[in-house]
């Protein structure tokens, strides 16, 4: 039975160090929810509080309306997938998968059937008699996943399950994980510091920073409308340009003509314009108001990535897709810079708040 997870003002301290000061989240039933953030931001800490391996020092966590603060880990009915697989080395694949069912005293026939089904779902049935040492990393992670989902847990927790795999397997396995989660409809909390992984599998993402939630939203929201400069910078690539907002809300790069966007809030003064590389439009320098000099050009196959030096010693990153051009621009060339304006983001000088 999938459950919703409610995290209310939880706090976690290690000795004098407060890893999570106060954090609240609502995770919906059946949702694929991801905790994303830089190393040390407290993702694992929070996940382990849900799992019952870290004590909750303040606030409460409940599954549906049952508070689980004092429920020991083995009674929480969770499935967990670990970064290093954590498969029992002394048991075969099949025994590993059946482990949780035996603990739950599931009748033998049903146990057999569910184990078999889970192994088939994860495409490991043909290895059922093997020991973990005889499996590849990807196969081991499939066993770990089968073992966690076969018990039909109320919540499935995964802590960087793919980070020990090579790049190609990572992409393959994240599709597997997403597919299985959809098929079984298990409420899932997924931890990663890989933004691409997070964007590709999640229903919703909480971007974390220093024990706080910096932004909560769908992958699309978070990518297109970051709530602050931390998120804009952490997810994808963003160039920041200082701008001036006048009394009418017009936004202009210093000394240039106003751009086509307006600050939504009544705000006047300096602000920060955030622009992603794919939203920079390169033009000829003549007739352009805002120009820069290309300092590097990196050919990436489907696109070329430019670093452009602009006035004030700043740099802007721009992508030009090969389908839009025949020949990349040269290093040293001066180019005009325009923007895909509806995709721009604007923040107050502290970077904490969006002005759009």
């Amino acid at each position: 039975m999938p459950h919703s997870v409610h995290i209310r003002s939880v706090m976690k301290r290690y000795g004098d160090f407060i890893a999570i000061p106060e954090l609240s989240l609502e995770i919906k039933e059946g949702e694929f929810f991801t905790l994303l953030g830089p190393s040390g931001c407290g993702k694992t800490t929070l996940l382990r509080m849900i799992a019952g391996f870290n004590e909750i020092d303040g606030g409460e966590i409940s599954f549906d309306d049952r508070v689980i603060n004092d429920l020991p880990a083995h009674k929480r009915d969770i499935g967990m997938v670990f970064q290093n697989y954590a498969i029992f080395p002394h048991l075969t694949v099949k025994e590993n998968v059946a482990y949780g069912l035996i603990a739950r005293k599931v009748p033998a026939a049903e146990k057999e059937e569910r184990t078999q089904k889970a192994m088939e779902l994860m495409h490991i049935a043909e290895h059922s008699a093997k020991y973990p040492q005889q499996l590849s990393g990807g196969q081991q992670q499939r066993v770990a996943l089968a073992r966690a989902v076969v018990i039909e847990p109320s919540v499935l927790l995964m802590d960087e399950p793919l980070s020990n795999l090579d790049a190609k397997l990572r992409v393959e396995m994240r599709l597997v994980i997403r597919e299985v989660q959809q098929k079984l409809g298990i409420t899932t909390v997924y931890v990663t510091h890989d933004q691409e992984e997070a964007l590709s599998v999640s229903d919703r993402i909480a971007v974390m920073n220093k024990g706080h939630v910096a932004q909560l939203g769908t992958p699309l929201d978070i990518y297109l409308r970051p709530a602050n400069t931390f998120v804009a910078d952490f997810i994808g690539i963003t160039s920041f340009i200082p701008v001036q907002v006048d009394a009418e809300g017009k936004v202009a790069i210093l000394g240039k003509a106003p751009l086509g966007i307006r600050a939504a809030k009544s705000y006047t003064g300096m602000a920060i314009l955030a622009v992603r590389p794919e939203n920079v439009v390169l033009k000829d320098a003549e007739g352009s108001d805002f120009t820069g000099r290309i300092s590097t050009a990196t050919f990436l196959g489907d696109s070329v990535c430019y670093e452009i030096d602009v006035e004030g010693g700043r740099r802007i990153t721009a992508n030009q897709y090969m389908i839009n051009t025949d020949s990349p621009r040269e290093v040293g060339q001066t180019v005009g810079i325009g923007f895909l304006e509806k995709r721009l983001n604007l923040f107050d000088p502290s970077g904490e708040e969006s002005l759009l």
Partner: protein
Amino acid sequence: MNAALRVPSFQERLAKRLNFWNVVLVLLLLLTLVFIVYPFGQMFYNSLFNADGEFSFANYQKFFGRRYYYNALFNSLKICVTVTITSLLIGLPMAYLTSRFHILGKRFVDIAVVLSLLSPPFIGAYSWILLFGRSGVVTTFLADWGIDIGSIYGFKGIVMVFTLKLYPFVYLYVSGALSSMDASLEEASANLGITGLERIMRVTFPLIIPTILSSGLIVFMTALADFGTPMLLGEGYKVLPVLIYDEYLSEVGSDTYLANAMSVIIVCISATVLFIQKKIINRKSYNMSALNPPAITHLPTGKYLLASGFVLLVAVVSLFPQITVAYTSFLKMNGPLFVDGFSLDSYRYIMFKLSRNISNTFMFALAALAVMIMLGLLISYIVVRRRSRASGLLDFLVMFPYVLPGSVLGICLVMAFNKGPIMIAGTMWIMILSYTIRKLPFTLRSSVGILYQIDPSIEEASISLGVSPMKTFFTVMVKLMMPGLLSGAVLSFIAVINEVSSTIILYTGRTVTMSVTIFSEINRAGYGTAAALATLLSLITIVALIIFRKLGGKDVA
């Protein structure tokens, strides 16, 4: 709404803490309190009272006031320092030669080294007496030719026997470190023009200083605590453990209060040495990973023979005692005298007359082993996975007997448990208790090592799948730890069956073991039976060692 502000009641907090591991921790702490802290505390306390039961430093004044007593302390220190140096002088070059060059009979050398390490020390002393003693085979033979080789008794003899018995510690530790050292370090120094002996002294050995120090420390502490060898060979040359034994057990004029004070002194020395070593090791340890293990090279023929000759000579000489003892065990005896011809009489005698000693030895050792394995599992888990101030205290208390010489521990235990609610002095329980306390530090360290290699998430996986922490420990963790723990336990078993220094204090007629019988047989001139028992003990040791290898154990030291 803000639950962070709600202060949980005492009952709630207690209920939260009342889990399996905390209960085990409390029980274990109680056990150490009763069986380690109390006996030792009592000994320390008693050392501060005189025979009339008044508080005084009289015992210490007596010790440091009389030449007879404080001389034993000097003798002990003199022997320990000398033996440490001689063991290093033999062990270091041997380790270097065998781990860097091809040496004739390397496998034989390894076996000989381990065998001489694992025999009870007085077997060495005893067989040297058989050879070079006043009426020894060699002595009488040479005397017939008019050659006087001098006495094997006293300082010289003790140092020789200790060295031959203890250099294996240096050899094994240092070979291990040398072969896991990264070869590029030595190669780099060769590129800088530092070669040969200079390279060894300036690069190779300094890099493994911590290992050299640890092995030296073990030699020092073992020599300090050992009792059998100086007892047999010392004659007038008294060392501290022998004096403690005398004061504690001698029929006339024994002074247990003084024995207490001397025990405290010897423990203080051990603890100091251990403390200094810890400090030095912490400061001077280099992280080495052998990405590029050193190659074993060929020496030119002349040097090859010279090196092999040295190494083989040491190995053979250190096997001498075993060979002599085995040979003696098959000699025909008439009373205390050897007569011409061979026989199995000695073996018949021990099988009929001394079978109880043999069964006692096995029973005590196996019982102690079972307890050690269980405690080793539980304590190592608490120390590694449930780190807290209390678990640190537990670790310290369990490791503390490591610095207690066996005879001191024996005395502590007798004094503590010959009265009161736990009256087990004179029974088999006190023997098992003593063996457990003495060897648990080794079992614990090996099981701690194993536990560090097991990923914590394995057990979290089991818990998350619905198996309680306690059941997870017994079904998953124990299974994963067992192979490594068993191979460590075999070594503890070997150490226990060869143990004398506490046994000799604790045994009674009913609980006599093979090792003390060897000692008492030697004292009453039953050389044949002593030799037969000793041979049997060595044989059991060899069998246990083979089992150990089969179990996959590598680290003999």
